[in-house]
């Protein structure tokens, strides 16, 4: 205590000071503040990546050759068949041949165009996804740095919040919430408090939208599977509905992935589920299973299957929420099936009141 030289109290002309604005980080008050230029302290040290992408094992060379040759074989077969098909059509009649050839050309052309477009936007979307992840991990780092008893506010959280809010500012339904956040948060709040405010005002309404999207998708998939006559149709239905859900949830949090980006997102979500959230996943699945068994006893096997499917779809939606939410879930409000049920019943209650 005595060895430390703290700065002496001092008064300055208010004309010479600048506001402790959200964008500037304050050098921490210590014995030698001059060692840190404010520009250098602006951002939190890059914390460890929150979603570890599972390291992909090296594919065996033989396997790779096999894969490629199989793909080439498929393409060649299709091309060969197509060629023969068109030749036969031309033999039959020139008009039929031309029409079919035009159709094939159109299909191929548009298919290639779609793929090219997806590829061209893929890089941008992946950048966006990485950005969302970096925002999330930075928010997590700020919250962790503050600890349970609340640290000091130094403007980093305000700056981060400004970046998180920016893409939402174009959405009219969030205008009120954003205005409320800006009116509530100020330099007197600690980093943790700023992010709590952001969660309460802006992210919570998004969560509610996402939960109801997940609920809808789960219901669709569940009912669809219970009613569908064939297993193949089941699978297609569930995959289609789940992918649509992933897009919906990502869009709610301000991120619109194309097909490939969505695939990557799904891949990451599953990778994440396999490592981090496995416990919760298993617990939820067991819960859903128990419900399904009960349902099977009471109602029918189909209804039970439907419930199980609904739970799986919902689980996928919840994982998407975790991946896309700009502020990480706290321990208390982590997305889970139980939480989803509570949210949905609360929303039902609110509808009753209105």
């Amino acid at each position, binding site marked *: 205590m005595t060895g430390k030289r703290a700065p002496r*109290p*001092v008064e300055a002309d208010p004309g010479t*000071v600048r506001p*402790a604005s959200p964008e500037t980080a304050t050098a921490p008050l210590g014995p030698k503040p001059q060692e840190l230029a404010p520009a250098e302290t602006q951002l939190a040290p890059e914390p460890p990546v929150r979603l570890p992408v599972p390291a992909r094992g090296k594919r065996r060379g033989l396997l790779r050759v096999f894969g490629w040759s199989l793909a080439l074989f498929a393409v060649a077969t299709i091309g060969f068949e197509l060629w023969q098909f068109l030749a036969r059509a031309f033999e039959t009649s020139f008009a039929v041949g031309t029409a079919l050839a035009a159709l094939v050309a159109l299909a191929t052309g548009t298919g290639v165009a779609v793929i090219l477009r997806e590829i061209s936007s893929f890089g941008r979307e992946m950048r966006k996804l990485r950005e969302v992840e970096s925002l999330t991990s930075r928010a997590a780092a700020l919250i962790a740095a503050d600890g349970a008893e*609340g640290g*000091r506010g130094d403007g980093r959280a305000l700056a981060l919040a400004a970046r998180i809010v920016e893409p939402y500012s174009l959405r009219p339904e969030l205008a009120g919430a954003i205005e409320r956040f800006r009116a509530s948060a100020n330099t007197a709040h600690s980093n943790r408090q700023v992010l709590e405010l952001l969660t309460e005002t802006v992210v919570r309404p998004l969560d509610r939208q996402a939960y109801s999207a997940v609920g809808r998708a789960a219901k669709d998939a569940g009912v669809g599977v219970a009613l569908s006559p064939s297993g193949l149709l089941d699978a297609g239905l569930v995959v289609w509905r789940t992918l649509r859900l992933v897009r919906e949830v990502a869009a709610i949090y301000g991120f619109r992935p194309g097909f490939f980006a969505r695939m990557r997102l799904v891949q990451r979500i599953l990778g994440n589920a396999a490592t981090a959230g496995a416990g919760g996943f298993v617990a939820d699945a067991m819960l859903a299973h128990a419900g399904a068994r009960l349902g099977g006893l009471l109602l029918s096997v189909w209804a039970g299957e439907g419930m199980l499917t609904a739970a799986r779809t919902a689980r996928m939606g919840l994982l998407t929420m975790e991946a896309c939410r700009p502020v990480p879930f706290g321990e208390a409000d982590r997305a889970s099936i139980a939480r989803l049920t509570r949210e949905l019943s609360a929303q039902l209650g609110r509808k009753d009141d209105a």
Partner: protein
Amino acid sequence: MAESGARAVLRRFTERNTVRIAVTGLRRCGKTVFTTSAVHNLLRAGQWPEALPFLKVTGRGDLIAAEVSPLPGLPPFPFEDSLAAITGGEHAWPRPTDRLSGLRIALRYRTRRPLARLRGPRVRVLNVDLVDYPGEWLLDLPLMAQDFAAWSAETLARASRPPRAALFEPWRAYVDGLDAAGPADPAVLDRAAEMYAEALRAAAAPESRLFLNQPARVVRPGEREEGDPLLKLSPLPAPANGGTGADTLHGAMARRFEAYRRQVVGPFYRRHFRHFEAQIVLVDVLAALKGGEESFDDMRAAIAATLQSFDYARSGLRAWLESARTRRVVFAATKADHVSSNQHPNLRRLLEEVVARESNRIRFRGVATSALALSSVRCTEDVLGEVQGQTLSMVRGLPAGRETETALFPGEIPAHFPGPQDWRDGRFRFLDFLPARVSSARGLPQIGLDLALEALIGDRLR
């Protein structure tokens, strides 16, 4: 004036939706401003939740509206006047409180409790009762547990030690010359009381920065007249031969002391500090830091003395019937806006150390306590300034007695209780900032007021 047990029991069942908050704090620590800001922000928070974002009921948008009404049996709290003083053109804080007043604020809110519908309406009302009074009066509460001889001995000892010795010198010389066992002469008693009162007023003056000044009504009589015979008190040294008969000087003064205790302190204590559910203890840590070591120690002693007279341990059937259980005590370091916000964690830690013993005692009795940095009305803003090549976090505002704003780095608030070697000249420079440019349209700007209210009444607004 005293509230009878029967009435308290009745209240238990008729006013179940009422919370009494005991706002305690020594003089000039911001009780009136706390009450004003809390009431005003609660009135506005129904429409503008950003006024109190961390009060959960407003944060989740469930506070519908609030309404102020007077408290039965008390003069109304001058809410409008205080608010006008803060937001008006004269840039001033409300005048020091010199009498007792109170108000009730009714909060209309939606409950989110599970199964709430089965147990009543979803929209409910919670009444919050707040009482304002001169902070000095709290210092009378310890008298409830002392007799005249003990109080005299303690006060005499304190008056002969450094910060007070000079102020109390003439009075001490006079009472030392008296024969306490001698015959009771009213003129002598009055003379001693008069000299004591004079010294006490000097000690209570703001520039002396001394807190433990008893009996408090001598300094701030409130509704009593200056010359009230009940207030003519003075500690007396114990008689040498142990003779404390009723007709001695000592005995006569002891009777006056007894009357003061019974007629002045008792009713105040019973009525306002026996039945409360939540308590906020406001501590002006900065003022004590500014006053130096002696002032700091005196403030600690005053807070300790005050809090020791609260009975947190009441339990059993009677306490249940009277709803006398205290659930929460919040300690708040006030005027947090006088230092930049990155110093608030240290301010809070310092406060925790100042009240550590009392807080521990209260927790032992099963009452939850918390501590925070508070500014009921924030009248500065955080700025950064370059001073001799260092970037310092400063506060910018209008100090008392000046025409123009200034930016101030008041020194670094220590995270720990300063030891004797840490008090050196020029370590701190605090200025009293005035509420200039404060708008009340969407609630008064505040730091930690919402957290304090959440800690006090949050659990009743679920």
